[in-house]
């Protein structure tokens, strides 16, 4: 899908992946998350390869993909508290973070509604609120602004800003214009391997 890609993400850094459909943005994010293993090449956290200790890497990473894992019969509050518990947070101790997460994406009003009543944009915000419900230093966001209105996108930008100011890293694939100060850009189209059409076919 791509080869020769190399990048480094310092603390507080942000990298925006761009590229045409199918250029491998989502695959690169899944590689970095550890869900996929690379065919060749290395992924390092500091000096250690991530494959050396995947569970430790998983606890460093938040991955928000195309699918938002929002269950129609559960409420945003239940989902967020489950996602926190899944990452080993004690429900009582994570309650303030949970309130903060709901507030950051303006979900308080719908926090106790079953998610089947929510719109696509609201579900997206529930998925994004996961970023704040449990802390993790590296955020992998795949088209995070899909279905978000302008105001929600501004909220997302603020949340990312606070995360980076605290030394967090963000790797983001997007077509939307998300404003990130000093973010590096990586255009994956430049790394597509040249596939010659087979004349025999």
């Amino acid at each position: 899908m791509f080869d020769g890609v190399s990048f480094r993400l310092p603390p507080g850094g942000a990298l925006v992946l761009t590229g045409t459909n199918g250029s491998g943005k989502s695959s690169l994010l899944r590689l970095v998350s550890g869900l996929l293993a690379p065919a060749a090449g290395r992924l390092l956290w500091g000096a250690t390869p991530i494959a050396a200790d995947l569970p430790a890497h998983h606890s460093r990473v938040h991955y928000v993909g195309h699918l938002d894992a929002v269950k129609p019969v559960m409420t945003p509050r239940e989902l967020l508290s489950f996602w926190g518990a899944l990452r080993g947070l004690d429900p009582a101790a994570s309650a303030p973070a949970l309130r903060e997460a709901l507030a950051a994406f303006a979900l308080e009003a719908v926090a106790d509604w079953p998610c089947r009543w929510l719109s696509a944009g609201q579900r997206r915000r529930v998925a994004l609120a996961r970023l704040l419900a449990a802390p993790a230093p590296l955020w992998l966001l795949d088209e995070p602004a899909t279905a978000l209105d302008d105001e929600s996108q501004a909220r997302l930008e603020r949340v990312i800003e606070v995360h980076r100011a605290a030394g967090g890293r963000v790797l983001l694939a997007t077509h939307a214009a998300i404003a990130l100060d000093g973010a590096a850009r990586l255009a994956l189209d430049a790394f597509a391997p040249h596939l010659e059409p087979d004349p025999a076919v």
Partner: protein
Amino acid sequence: MAALLSVFHRDLRLALRQGGDTALVLGFFVLAVVLFPFGVGPEPEILGRIAAGILWVAALLAALLSLDRLYQAEYEDGGLDLIVLSPIPLELAVLAKCAAHWAATGLPLALLSPLLALVVDLDPVAFPTLVVGLLAGTPALSLIGSVAAALTLGARRQGVLLSLLVLPLYVPPLVFGAAAVEASVMGAGARADLYILGALSLAAMAVSPWASAAALRLALE
């Protein structure tokens, strides 16, 4: 540990709230058993003779019915990614999901079985054996089913494939489960059969989490 409990609680909650899952399984169990007196005729001797088999076969089919829900919904909505990406080992997460599946299907099946045993004229002497046998044997059904559900993840017509894979593997619990009930009707001890049922569940518990986790990882690639 708390993370595992949270997976168990959430799956149980999903199964109970979606209604479909537990209610469907129990409804199927009841209807399947109630059909037999109509088909076979109401003679107590005939019904009583085949009651153990009817109850166990109906329980197997009912458990099978809910298996495709075990991972499919989670796979489609991206929830599986999050479980794989959590710090808990996938093998243990599988075990927690199977436990929730059992609590939402096998456990109510076992508790409901004496009522249905009345419908098919099973000798009341065998009721305790029937319940204990189902309690000991149904965990194996959830665990074996988990491997097949993980293997068929994303396949078209998953349900059909799932039944073909799972039903042959359900034969041992069926044989010993029905034999246990049979033995206690005859007045012979059912203990040996019940132990074997428990052993089947324990063996499944030892193998299934690893096999299921491997299949799930494969499905997510």
